[in-house]
């Protein structure tokens, strides 16, 4: 320490100080810019994100989830649910919930991206949990065929083989998956929102999840090769169609054929 203080009047001291200052500023700036670029990598939230998120949480979520997200009679504790759960629930408009019911309904988002991120940062700061997935698993470049097999085995019993959705007990349901972003699909798998089970990485590897997302996006972009898909709901909509449209048109023709010009 003495040596350092002795050299403080060294001719190069001012230059060294200037260099240090520049390095620190530049380095900080570099860190700040990579945070901005790698938006998906939100494991590193800034302290201000956490702070802002805390304020938003207290104002909008704490009524049910309790102060400090420790849970209450009306809502579960969110300690350890992770940023992925927040990004899914808030990012699809399910939270804040419009009303109590069998399950939270999708609706227009109540928070913008920035606020969603801040809320996620706050909840993630409370305890470790599933993070928002990295871009690598969302690139939709996996193996669609393998994804289809995984989907049929793990997802189709609720979401329907064509991902058209299906009913669960007592008013609950598995939604249709067309138009859902890959990120939200991934987050749903790792956090198990509403009545969905959690598919952790031991259950379906991140690679498998990537395949599933690839499959879903591919069947969505493929469209329906055989013409209008009638909701992809299977024999019920086909039966309705043949009785109402098919037989209806034919009855119109029979009436025309047997009518007489009078």
């Amino acid at each position: 320490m003495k040596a350092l203080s002795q050299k403080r009047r060294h001719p190069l001291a001012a230059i060294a100080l200037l260099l240090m200052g520049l390095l620190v500023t530049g380095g900080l700036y570099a860190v700040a810019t990579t945070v901005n670029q790698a938006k998906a990598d939100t494991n590193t939230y800034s302290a201000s994100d956490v702070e802002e998120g805390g304020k938003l949480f207290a104002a909008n979520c704490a009524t049910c989830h309790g102060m400090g997200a420790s849970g209450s009679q009306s809502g579960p504790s969110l300690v350890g649910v992770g940023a992925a759960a927040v990004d899914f629930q808030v990012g699809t408009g399910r939270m804040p919930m419009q009303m109590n019911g069998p399950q939270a309904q999708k609706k227009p988002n109540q928070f913008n991206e920035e606020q969603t991120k801040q809320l996620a940062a706050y909840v993630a700061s409370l305890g470790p949990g599933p993070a928002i997935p990295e871009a690598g698993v969302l690139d939709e470049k996996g193996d669609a065929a393998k994804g289809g097999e995984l989907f049929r085995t793990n997802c189709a019993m609720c979401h329907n083989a064509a991902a058209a959705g299906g009913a669960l007990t007592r008013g609950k349901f598995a939604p249709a998956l067309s138009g859902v972003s890959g990120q939200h699909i991934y987050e749903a798998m790792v956090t198990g929102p509403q009545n969905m089970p959690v598919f952790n990485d031991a259950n379906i590897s991140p690679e498998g999840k990537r395949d599933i997302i690839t499959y879903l996006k591919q069947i969505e972009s493929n469209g329906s090769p055989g013409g209008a898909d009638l909701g992809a709901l299977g024999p019920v909509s086909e039966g309705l169609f043949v009785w109402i449209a098919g037989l209806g048109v034919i009855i119109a023709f029979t009436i025309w054929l047997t009518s007489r010009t009078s």
Partner: protein
Amino acid sequence: MSSSLTPDAPVFVAKTTGGRITDFVDQRVGGSGILREFGRKVFPDHWSFMFGEVALYSFVILLLSGTFLTFFFDPSMAETHYAGSYTPLKNVEMSVAYSSSLNISFDVRGGLFMRQVHHWSALLFVASVSVHMLRVFFTGAFRKPRELNWVVGGVLLILSMAAGFTGYSLPDDLLSGNGLRIIDGVIKSIPVIGTYTSFFLFGGEFPGTMIISRLYMLHILLVPALILLMIVMHLFMVVVHKHTQYPGPGRNDGNVVGYPLGPVYAAKAGGFFFIVFGVVALMAAFFTINPIWNYGPYDPSPVSAGTQPDWYIGFVDGALRLMPGTIGDWKVEQVWFGHVFTFNVLLPALVPAGILFTVMFTYPWIERWITKDNREHHVLDRPRNAPTRTAIGMAGFVWYCVMWAAAGSDLIATHFNVALNDVTYWLRALFFVGPVIAFVVTKRVALALQRKDREIALHGRETGRIVRLPHGEFIEVHAPLDEYKRYKLVGFESPAPLPAVPNEHGVVDRKENRRAKLSRWFFEDRVAPVTPAELEAAHGHHGSHEAVEAAASQKTLSH
């Protein structure tokens, strides 16, 4: 010896080559005689008489498109890896049957279209058979002499369901495999012989390696052959019995009023084939049916949400869905003598269908026994003029529809935002209450319509014009009915209950007593048709009004 056989008699020689060929064939086949006989057959014209034709034409379309599909379909359950052009299934392990179905869909030119033509016309086939049967039932066309043809029609309905189901299972995709699994479960639930039957059918434990090729043989050989045989019998009997007709002036049980088959009616019927084909082709071109590529290959472990059979098996699936596994604390599945009796599968799968078909097949004889009506009937009943029969029919129809709706309970829940459990509870209640409500309401509606007919026949149609008479009375002007329209309203039978009649020993036995009770139940609520005397009286009573009405209508005419 007739003169035509003498050698020197003038022999007819046609002028043109075509004529000579026709004459040659005719002399050996006798075509002109057949044509003369059939060309003169008279068919009454009514749109509701054409559903049988729709069914026949759908069947022809099925044969044509089905033949195309057999060129490319391979009913083997050997395992293969998909190498066709549908990328989401690339290299997936599957059966040859499923792979060849995918190839028909994606790699055979026009294959997907033909598959969709085949499937849509199958749905239309069973639908038109059903509507045809409903028409026959509600108009009383099953009565003597057509009881046996009604039974043949019922057999055709069952055969068409069998044809549909065996075809539904062929692509070996996840959906059809799930359907087969349910059939397997139903077979296994039959006490004692169930498991053996399942093993024989599948050639071992489900799903085995035999079932697709076995179903294929049934689907393309046995069932269509039986259907064809039944259609021949059905049409033969139609020719023998002649066609029924709706009541109308000049129509009775001894004649048929309508157009001769040739040439106009035959042209219409022939053209109608192309209309049906056109409608099916349009549906196949623009609407997907059974997108097997969505479902993936069959694998006994996954079961997709929204797994349903095609509509005609739906009522059995619905009954299965409605059946509770426990009633209170009592388990429907029982273990007796160390054997499991799965009544929660056996009862819903076999009992409702059994009741429906038994009543359907025996109904002509039930009604004949109750009414003791042994006459031939060629003039149909308007459904309102047989209130109890119509009510019975509607009760059965509603019962069927409740089970039918239950097959789509999950989709009702998701699409109408209601709870699946509530849908099931309501449908369970309706399963018992629905037919009763339908019976009562239908009978009341039929009787009310009959009373309305009676009113109109007696007093004419209400015009809504109010006229004040010179002495201050207001009356509504009734437009008198012309005789042809009135005939339709009064020309029906309304039998009174038939009391018990003693047999040859002078004793009223229990069976006869029961019949008399049923007869009372059948006919006690009745609206008698207007008699000529009543009509006369009504007109006499309204004499002064009629004069006004006549004057009023004169006035309207002069405007």
